[in-house]
Each structure stands twice: as structure tokens, then as C-alpha cells.
């Protein structure tokens, strides 16, 4: 067991360097210096406190989404609808904030309520995908894709319709909320320690659920062999649904924090692709919740580190996406090779 984990780690390390090598080749091919590119990305992400705070801003939603996806992955479910669940979280939060924005309720209570509102909305959206899967027999990948489009539509509708800015509706989003409804931030930095704490607690809870509870064991049983789990008396459809609900609530929290801690309003691209990135991270850490922390941090650092690339060296910030995609593919590659290798021995 230990040996297989060690070999797994070594192969992931190999995959990492292969990915770096492959991306370097691409960079050389397009006439850019890989060394400069990586150096700039490193500088851009951990070069200063301010930059690192930006990395953490990107880390929070990614970690929350990954935490949720670890649960659905453990239950053997492909919750591709997670993008939409983030969006609904943001919508739910915005809705609650709008309800109370002119009231005399203490802002702290409003913020807390709004985050719960976001989590509830995310869970509801996940429940749709779960219900389509368990009662309608709709594969969760297709149901999720459909619901993702719907959530995009809903956001656009709200931004251009009922929630539009006084006067003009625009792609810049809804009217920003007053500052009192924002989660307090560290002075001079954009990161809120509250959101960081929420994400940290979430991943710990997920770790605990999966490692130390009977509930987690049942979810994993459903994921490993749904028929065997059913024969053992686990109500499998209920556990599938539970895992959807947990994942939806966590994705909803990610959306909620995007509103209360980052954008302070609803914008069209509120999910920013964190759902797909979360799927990558959850897969890379191979269901080990604790590893999600460093890997999500690394992915967030890539995102932020590449922002300056267009200015510094006329490269596109999408280099981070290339690196992330290539990394995942090389991990799949080395994992496949390892499986063959292990089998032969």
C-alpha cells in the first residue's frame, strides 16, 4: 500500500516535469523563452505579498469546489454541473443581499444569511442533477451540461432583466453592493481571511467525512460498486443524492464568496471556469482530500502568475490553461503507464 502510494507520487512528479518540458517545447516553438515565462509566472504569483494574496483569492473558490467534487467523485458521480452550482450560489447570495440591502438588519447577519442562501441555491441546483440521474435516468454529465447552460441563461436574464442597473443593463453586472455587505478584507490586500477560513474548514470537513465516518464509508461503497453497496442494504440513490447536495452546497459557497468577498455584485462570468478546474484538481489528488490544498494552491498560483505575461513578454495569460491541461494529460499518461507496470510485476 505504502509502496504503491510512493510509486504513485514518483509518477506524478515525473508527469509534472514532463508537462513542464512539453510546455517549454511549445514556448520555444512559438519563439518565447520558457525560462523567462516560468520565472515571470513565479514572480507574478509569489513575488510579493500582494500577489500572493491574489493567489489566495483564486485559491478559495477552487478549494471549495474541489472539496465538494471529492464527495461526488467518491460516490462515483461526474458532477459536471458544478459550474452551474457555483453560479446558482452566486445568484442565491445576491438575492438574499438584495432582500436586506435597505433593511436595518445588521450587515454581519445579512452576510451570513446570504452565504447560507448561496449554499442552499447551489445544493438545490445539484439536487436537480441528482434527481434527473436517480429518477430520470439521465446521465449526470448530460444533465449537468444542460443545467450549466440554464444557469448561464438565468444569470444573463437577471443581470439584463429584473436586477439590471439603474438606467442601463450591461455585461459588467448588477449594481455593486455597499461596502458594509462585503466580507472584511486584510488591509491593503484583496483577500478576506473569513473566506480563506471557510474554504479551509470545508476541506477539513470533507477529509473527515471521507476518512473517519460511516457516512463517508457508505458514499465510497456506492462509488466503488453500486450494486454491492445496494445488496449490502445501503439505499444507494439516497447516498448519491446526499453527495450531490453536499457538493452543490460547497460549490454554492464558492459562488457566494465570489459575490461577498471578491466582486461584490453578480457578474456574467461569475464561475470563471472554477468548476472545470476543480474537476481537474480532484482528479489529480486521486480523492486524497488533504492533497487538494497544495494542488489547488498551485493551480491558483498558475492562474495569477500568468496574468502579467501579456505585458511582460507578449505571451497570453492562457499559458496557465495550457500548463494545467497538459499537466492533467501527463498525469493520466503516467498513471496509465504505472498501472501497466504494476500489473506486470
Amino acid at each position, binding site marked *: 500500500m505504502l509502496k504503491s502510494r510512493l510509486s504513485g507520487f514518483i509518477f506524478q512528479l515525473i508527469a509534472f516535469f514532463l508537462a513542464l518540458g512539453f510546455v517549454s517545447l511549445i514556448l520555444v516553438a512559438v519563439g518565447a523563452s520558457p525560462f523567462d515565462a516560468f520565472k515571470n509566472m513565479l514572480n507574478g504569483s509569489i513575488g510579493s505579498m500582494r500577489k500572493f494574496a491574489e493567489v489566495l483569492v483564486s485559491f478559495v473558490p477552487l478549494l471549495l469546489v474541489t472539496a465538494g467534487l471529492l464527495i461526488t467523485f467518491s460516490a462515483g458521480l461526474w458532477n459536471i454541473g458544478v459550474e452551474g452550482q457555483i453560479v446558482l450560489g452566486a445568484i442565491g447570495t445576491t438575492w438574499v443581499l438584495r432582500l436586506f440591502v435597505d433593511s436595518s438588519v445588521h450587515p454581519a447577519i445579512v452576510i451570513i444569511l446570504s452565504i447560507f442562501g448561496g449554499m442552499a441555491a447551489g445544493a438545490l441546483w445539484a439536487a436537480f442533477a441528482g434527481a434527473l440521474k436517480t429518477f430520470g435516468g439521465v446521465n449526470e454529465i448530460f444533465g449537468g451540461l444542460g443545467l450549466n447552460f440554464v444557469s448561464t*441563461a438565468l444569470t444573463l436574464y437577471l443581470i439584463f*432583466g429584473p436586477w439590471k442597473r439603474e438606467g442601463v443593463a450591461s455585461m459588467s453586472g448588477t449594481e455593486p453592493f455597499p461596502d458594509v455587505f462585503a466580507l472584511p478584507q486584510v488591509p491593503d490586500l484583496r483577500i478576506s481571511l473569513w473566506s480563506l477560513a471557510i474554504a479551509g474548514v470545508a476541506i477539513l470537513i470533507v477529509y473527515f467525512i471521507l476518512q473517519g465516518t460511516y457516512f463517508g464509508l457508505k458514499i465510497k461503497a456506492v462509488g466503488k460498486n453500486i450494486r454491492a453497496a445496494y445488496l449490502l442494504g445501503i439505499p444507494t440513490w439516497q447516498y448519491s443524492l446526499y453527495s450531490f447536495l453536499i457538493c452543490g452546497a460547497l460549490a454554492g459557497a464558492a459562488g457566494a464568496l465570489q459575490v461577498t468577498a471578491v466582486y461584490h455584485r453578480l457578474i456574467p462570468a461569475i464561475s470563471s471556469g472554477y468548476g472545470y478546474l476543480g474537476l481537474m484538481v480532484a482528479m489529480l489528488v486521486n480523492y486524497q482530500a488533504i492533497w487538494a490544498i497544495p494542488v489547488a494552491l498551485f493551480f491558483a498560483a498558475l492562474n495569477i502568475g500568468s496574468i502579467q505575461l501579456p505585458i511582460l513578454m507578449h505571451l497570453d495569460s492562457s499559458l496557465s490553461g495550457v500548463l494545467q491541461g497538459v499537466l492533467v494529460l501527463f498525469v*493520466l499518461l503516467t498513471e496509465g503507464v504505472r*498501472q501497466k507496470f504494476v500489473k506486470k510485476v
Partner: protein
Amino acid sequence: MITELLSTTVLIGILASGIRLATPYLYAAIGETFGQKSGVLNLGVEGQMLLGCFAAFYVALTTGNLWLGLLAAMIVGAAMGLAMAFVTVNLRAQQGISGIGFYLFGLGMSDLLFQRLMGTVETVKGFQRIYIPGLSDIPGIGEIFFNQNILVYGAYLLVPLAWFVLNKTTLGLKIRAVGENPDAADSLGVSVARVRYFTIILGGTLSGIAGASLSIALLNVFQQNMTSGLGFIAVALVYFGAWKPVGVLGGALLFSMVNSLQLWIQVLGIPVPSDIAVMMPYVLTILVLVATVSRVRAPSALTKPFERDD
């Protein structure tokens, strides 16, 4: 105001552009149908399309030859398909994950290449409309169906062709067998790996063409992330179309007709609230989703890697 929409010219315009707009969906979704029929879910369509989109545009721009551009898109798509096939067939990777990996790669790579090789948005003179003597002159019908460019015609020809291959040929039988029961197919001597390689590479090639149809036939520009979710809609259309080419055609037409209507409403400046117009294609997605629930059954081996029991 609403009456403007009902004038014959506008109606013909809406239908003609609806027919045109369905083109990329058709190529991508028919390609995806082949993959899924053989048991492989390719979620990387969007990435394949984006790279195809860029390759076609860049080659057409630099060589001035649209056909070379199309060829480049096909090669890029096929190469992405080949890589996808290797990862899913040989390495038996989770298909959802590898697909999203290819999506991220294609998305980032097309942006990166655009930034390095072009930098600014340019335009090309794309495939022009083909005048078919006789047919194009039929009032109305001619304008709607027979005044389109070559890639549009190709997309519609692809539908019966795909139906024929899937249902009336040995190859189609093998594809379906591999998607429904790979073990049985394998024991009858059908190479599961070869069939899946074929369908995934074919799917990639068609996704490449889908991308090309955007950049050198319909819009004639390249912009970053210009497919904006179109590839994912294509994946969903396969489901809506119940894994049948004709069903995919229906879904693609419905989607693009509504989209066309929406665009025309905005062009004409009709005071239908723009939010409702923008939402229309998506609302339609919900309705179709609800309508198709539990009506269809996916290929049994979809998303399942094949491993021979020794």
C-alpha cells in the same frame, strides 16, 4: 413592430441564417455521435474546435487558400483525436477528465497561438455562397436552402451519410457493438481498440471542421474563445438527439433557428427585451432536456474503458 418579424423577407432571412448557424453544431455533434456510439464520451470537443478554428483561420490568412485552412483544421482535430484515443483506449483514463484536459489545452493553446502569431483580430474572405442554377432561383426556398457555402452543404450531407454508416454498414455495426457490449464484440473478433481509435479520430476531424466552419465560412474572423461553449452544446445535442444523426439534426436546427430568431430580433431593433432574446436558446435547452428525459438510453458501454478479461 412585431409585424416586421413576419414579413416574408425577414422570415426567409431568419430561416436561412438558422440553416447556416446549425453548421458547426452538426459537424461537432455528428462526430461526437460516432464516439459515443462506440462508448467514448469526448468532452474535449470544445478544445478541438477552438484549435481547428485557429488553424483554419491562420493557414487561410497566411496562404490565402481556404482549402488548405480546412485541411489544417482537420489535421489538428485528428491529431487531438489521436491523443485522446491513446489516453482513453490504451491508458484507459477516465474519459471525463481527459476530455476536460483537452478542452483546457485547446482553449489555452488557441489563445496563446493567436497572441503570438497574430496579435490582433483580422478577417479573411471565407468560403462564398454557391449559386446552384435552378435551385437557387426558387423563390424563398432557394434563398433559404440553396444559397449557402460549401461547408453548410457538407454539414447537411453528413447527416444521411452518418446515418448510413452507423446503420447500414459493417463498420457501423461494429461501432454499435463496441459501444453496447465490448466484451461480446471482442469475442467475435472485433478490435475494440481499433474501432474506438477510428471513431475518436473521426470525431476530432469533424470537430476541427466545425471550428473551421466558424472561422473561415460563417464569421470569417478568429477571436479568443470564439466557440464560447458551442462544443459543450454539441456534446449535449448528441444526448438530445438520442444518439441518432437525425435526432442530432433536429436538435441542432431547433437550437440554431431560435438563435437566429434572437439575432434578427436584435438586428431589427424590435423592442422585445434583450434579456429575453438572449435567453431564448437556453430556455429551449431546458425544454428539450425535460422532453427527452428517460425517453432514451445511452450506449451501455459509454464512458467505460474496455479491458479484456484474461
